[in-house]
């Protein structure tokens, strides 16, 4: 099977506090997954689950404490950043924060072309920019000489995607690309990812907390909780038939736009995130309705259940 990007045993430890009282938080703990060509893969979870840290490591903004990232069969090396980022481009959460308000938007396009030496003349640059903007439903005329404040959030996000497409990447890392876009315009961005996958064969690492759009657009999904991948598989299996108790809680907590499916019963919330990060065994044990003795002492193993990877004692041999 072809793997476009493979992440193996990725670990990132952050040290908090002063020199004397160092508190170590494992933000990403031994995470492994891969992305196939022309696939939309979701990394989903709540804030502080390590999904953005994973994305930042893949993009090279952070250095991993341990683990490897392999892109098209090549391991990432520090002196090969340009080659690496040419194949992997990023889109960020806040479309208004992505662009400097005092710079014309088109400058970002010309800059990217210059950095990667992708155009030999200004005319060629404009042609290339126009072609990429057409892929997202805009054109160079819409953009020429304009500043970020002249666009809506949804338009800016589409412009970000067009900018990312300039280098013909095989993978786009999109960190919460729709969470700051209005609900009425959200689907236009999400549909664009589908179009990129189907027409250009671009893979997308879709990082989100919004499981409903993940279900709509993604092929496979990994659910993260406090640095661990607790469940991974196709969206159909993971979201329609969640196995891990955390996925079940997450799935049940999504407010569905359907008045016949209102929330039933009460839930317990964690008081602070830190307690859960520092937990010895399974990090969800404090809130899990099925928690057993062993869950509190030893981290659970990862097991395969009907093609889905689950990290829970409920599905491992002596307990199931």
């Amino acid at each position, binding site marked *: 099977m072809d793997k476009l990007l493979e992440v193996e045993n990725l670990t990132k430890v952050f040290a908090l506090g002063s020199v004397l009282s160092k508190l170590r938080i494992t933000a990403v703990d031994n995470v492994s997954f891969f992305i196939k060509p022309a696939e939309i893969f979701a990394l989903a979870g709540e804030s502080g689950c390590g999904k953005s840290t994973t994305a930042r490591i893949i993009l090279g903004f952070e250095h991993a404490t341990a683990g490897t990232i392999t892109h098209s069969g090549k391991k990432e090396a520090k002196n090969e950043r340009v080659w690496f980022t040419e194949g992997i481009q990023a889109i960020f959460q806040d479309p208004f924060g992505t662009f400097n308000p005092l710079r014309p938007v088109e400058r970002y396009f010309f800059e990217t072309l210059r950095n990667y030496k992708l155009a030999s003349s200004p005319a060629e640059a404009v042609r290339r920019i126009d072609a990429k903007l057409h892929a997202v439903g805009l054109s160079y005329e819409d953009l020429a000489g304009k500043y970020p404040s002249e666009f809506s959030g949804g338009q800016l996000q589409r412009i970000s995607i067009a900018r990312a497409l300039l280098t013909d990447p095989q993978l786009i890392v999109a960190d919460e690309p729709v969470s700051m876009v*209005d609900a009425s315009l959200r689907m236009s961005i999400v549909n664009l990812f589908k179009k990129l996958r189907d027409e250009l064969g671009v893979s997308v690492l879709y990082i989100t907390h919004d499981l409903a759009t993940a279900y709509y657009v993604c092929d496979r999904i990994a659910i993260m909780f406090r640095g661990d991948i607790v469940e991974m598989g196709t969206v159909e299996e993971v979201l329609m038939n969640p196995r891990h108790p955390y996925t079940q809680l997450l799935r049940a907590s999504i407010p569905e*736009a359907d008045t016949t499916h209102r929330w039933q019963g009460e839930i317990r919330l964690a008081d602070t995130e830190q307690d859960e990060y520092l937990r010895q065994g399974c990090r969800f044990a404090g809130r899990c309705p099925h928690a057993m003795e062993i869950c509190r002492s030893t981290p659970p193993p990862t097991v395969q259940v009907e093609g889905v990877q689950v990290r829970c004692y409920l599905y491992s041999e002596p307990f199931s």
Partner: protein
Amino acid sequence: MDNTILRTTALQAFYQLDLYGKSKVVKAVNEVDLAIQADEIYGIAGESGCGKSTLLKALVAAVEPPLRVVGGKVTYRIDGKEVDVSTLSPEQKRALRLSYIAYVPQGSMSVLNPVARIRDTYRDFIESHLGRQRHQEAFALAQDHLTDLGLPLKILDAYPHQLSGGMRQRVTIALATLLKPRILIGDEPTTALDVVVQRGVVQLLKEVQARLKNTIVLVTHDMGVHANIADRIGIMYAGRIVEEAATEKIFGAPAHPYTQYLISSLPKFGDKTPRESVPGSPPSLANLPGGCPFHPRCPHVQTRCKEKMPGFTQIEKNHRVACWLVGEGEHGQAA
């Protein structure tokens, strides 16, 4: 008997800006008629920049220049009497805040003082509204309140940064409801939160409402939250309410084209059929299109949509729509 506790009548609140001799009027709230009942949860939905936050400012009588109430009025019903908020003095308004009407803002991060313990924030609130009390008494009041809401007491000794975002948001709700206000106004109280935490916050709001039998006006763009908590919903577009009905009606039988788009664009589990966004972009409130403000994006646009804003048509009891497709708009002013 009329059970309306909060009423707006043809409310118009505009930002009047004067930039280097060029004047600009932002019509953020335009002819809004609301009649919010006692003991209900009223949801206001709309995209960013549709004027929902400005409407809330007018509701809590926090109108500061350049925002001005240009027309219409907001009335509270206090002890059976209708009170026009524009007639209240600053002292009277201050006395009503928290005890009669309370406001839960969006960012829980910026509300709580980062260098004060939650206990001190509570004491400030209690002292400024109930007069100076002994610390012990104020603390006992805060403790009782937190226990009522099911929050752990140890948070009183914490600084805001030691609490998670969801806990901070629940602390702001607890603070806002300390004096048992009759009206609680929430401006996107769950927007920045994770889904599980959001559910916890909504659970707390529902519990507060059940306990105090008060009114909650909840503004959010998240239709899923509305479906879970609201009794009635008003859909706001470009400064106007374009449709208002019971929650079941809004989700089950939306009548305005904008509402229909809003509902049908929501992704659902177990259904991967392609969904479309509303075409185009929301209009600028400083430069609204003539007639119905939705006409440039509407698939059913007719000539008269471009000329005249439709009034409300009552298509059923408690279901009103401002659209020419639905009716002639004979039921009064468009809100």
